[in-house]
């Protein structure tokens, strides 16, 4: 299926991409709450996406606290949009 991306398709990674998609950057804690997983699970899934070049990680110190933001890279956004389009085609084909 054209556009289908096996890196993105597993549920947690699909959710992570969907949380990131509307924004430029989303804080790690927000993604964790939206996806409903632990820090370690999220870190592992983010690492997969980072290794594929789909997610970028930025760290900054705010009020003496280290905070982390995640964002979709240009190729990550393109892959996510392509994946969503492939899912839509599959869902529509059955109607």
């Amino acid at each position, binding site marked *: 299926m054209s556009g289908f991306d096996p890196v993105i398709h597993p*549920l947690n990674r699909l959710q992570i991409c969907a949380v990131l998609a*509307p*924004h430029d950057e989303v*804080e790690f804690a927000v993604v964790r709450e939206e996806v409903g997983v632990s820090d370690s699970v999220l870190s592992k899934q983010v690492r997969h996406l980072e290794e594929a070049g789909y997610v970028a990680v930025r760290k900054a110190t705010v009020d003496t606290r280290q905070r982390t933001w995640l964002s979709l890279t240009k190729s990550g956004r393109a892959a996510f*949009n392509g994946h969503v389009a492939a899912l839509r085609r599959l*869902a529509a084909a059955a109607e």
Partner: protein
Amino acid sequence: MPTEDITPEDARRALSEISAREQGSAARLEWPLWRELVLTGLVSGMVLAPLAARPFDILLIIACCGGILAMVRDYTRQPVWVSGYRKGRTQPMTFVFAGFVIALYLGSFAGYHTTGLWWIPVAASALMFLGFTVFNRIWMAVWRAEIREGRP
């Protein structure tokens, strides 16, 4: 997972999950009134610079630019943030508005320095305040509608 293993029902469930997560994430974007007022004030204040004598006109521009940069820095440290230049239906709106802002700045400077009429920068500043406020609201409404309708 091989593609042939995904059923249309799986695809529908995945799309529904994507939509729920996108909308949940989009609902977290905050644009409080104080931030809007301060930013609008700084952008509009800069248009008044021609009314001030040298070097206060330059100092006013530097102060406003510094304030805008500080606001942007604060905004990009929020839990979620979205840029005005993001791709989609909002992007052409941003470029059109940027043109409006540049035209008002140039109009204010050129209008005052060629005619000496004090009300030109004042009117330009008021127009900027109004334009910026309206633009913010329309931009956010279009962005939220785009998320609601789903991506292309």
